[in-house]
């Protein structure tokens, strides 16, 4: 079934091959950046979240450096009529914070504080074959599936 779905997606997706090369490259750079920043190591994340301990502010610099590029570049990119390789921009349209957003973000934050992983670094750390990383990633997918069947009807 997966194979059939996959084939259908390839044949019906109108994006040129360059779009796919670019998106795979993006993912690669993202994963490399996460690993270099140290976010793939829970000890590094604890060092940042544990303000009352021996605080390590490194991860603030990850965000500041990332935003240093995205803030100005997004401004110019979104002024273009369309992306380089696809026909339109796919952007969230809502801008009003609601209870669902805040509750979800809070649950995520608690999970982040318990496991010391957010989604990207956990995936990028899979190659370590660490049992906790594999368990975390499996449970994360399960959490998304549970949300899908419980909340998205």
């Amino acid at each position, binding site marked *: 079934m997966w194979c059939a779905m996959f084939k259908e997606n390839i044949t019906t997706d109108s994006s040129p091959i360059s779009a796919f090369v670019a998106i795979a490259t993006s993912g690669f750079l993202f994963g490399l950046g996460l690993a270099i920043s140290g976010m793939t190591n829970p000890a*590094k994340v604890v060092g940042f979240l544990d303000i009352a301990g021996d605080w390590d502010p490194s991860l603030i610099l990850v965000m500041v450096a990332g935003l240093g590029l*995205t803030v100005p570049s997004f401004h110019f990119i979104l002024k273009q009529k369309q992306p380089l390789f696809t026909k339109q921009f796919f952007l969230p349209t809502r801008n009003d914070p609601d209870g669902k957003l805040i509750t979800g973000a809070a649950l995520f934050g608690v*999970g982040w504080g318990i496991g010391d992983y957010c989604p990207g670094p956990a995936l990028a750390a899979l190659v370590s074959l660490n049992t906790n990383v594999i368990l975390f990633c499996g449970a994360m997918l399960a959490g998304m599936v549970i949300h899908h069947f419980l909340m998205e009807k």
Partner: protein
Amino acid sequence: MENFTPISAIMGGLLIGSAAMLTLWTNGRIAGISGILSGAMFPKQQDTLWRLLFVAGLILGGAVYAIASGDLEVITQASPVMSVIAGLLVGFGTRMGSGCTSGHGICGIARFSQRSLVATGTFMLAGFITVNVVRHV
């Protein structure tokens, strides 16, 4: 602050920022990991392939780092049970809250989205409180 690693943090952040920039510029998409991942499991349009390619690239990025540096350090104090609970909360919470550190923290804030600012503040605060309760209470 003896564990402070400003240079690798800035280099990593610049790579992450470049990746988010490339994703929006070439494909018109937001580089939000939780959204890309869940969208690959429950496709709404015919858009599974780019999601799988992004995730494959992400995992490969970690692998290449591990090979080049000789080690991808994973030091964790969480037990297997805690890892499962954490994963469930992160998976469920990022869907309910429409994003994670990448989608809200790096991309959403760059668009000056009010929702992303509020979400980022909330999960950061919840993370700080949780770690400090777990480790110091």
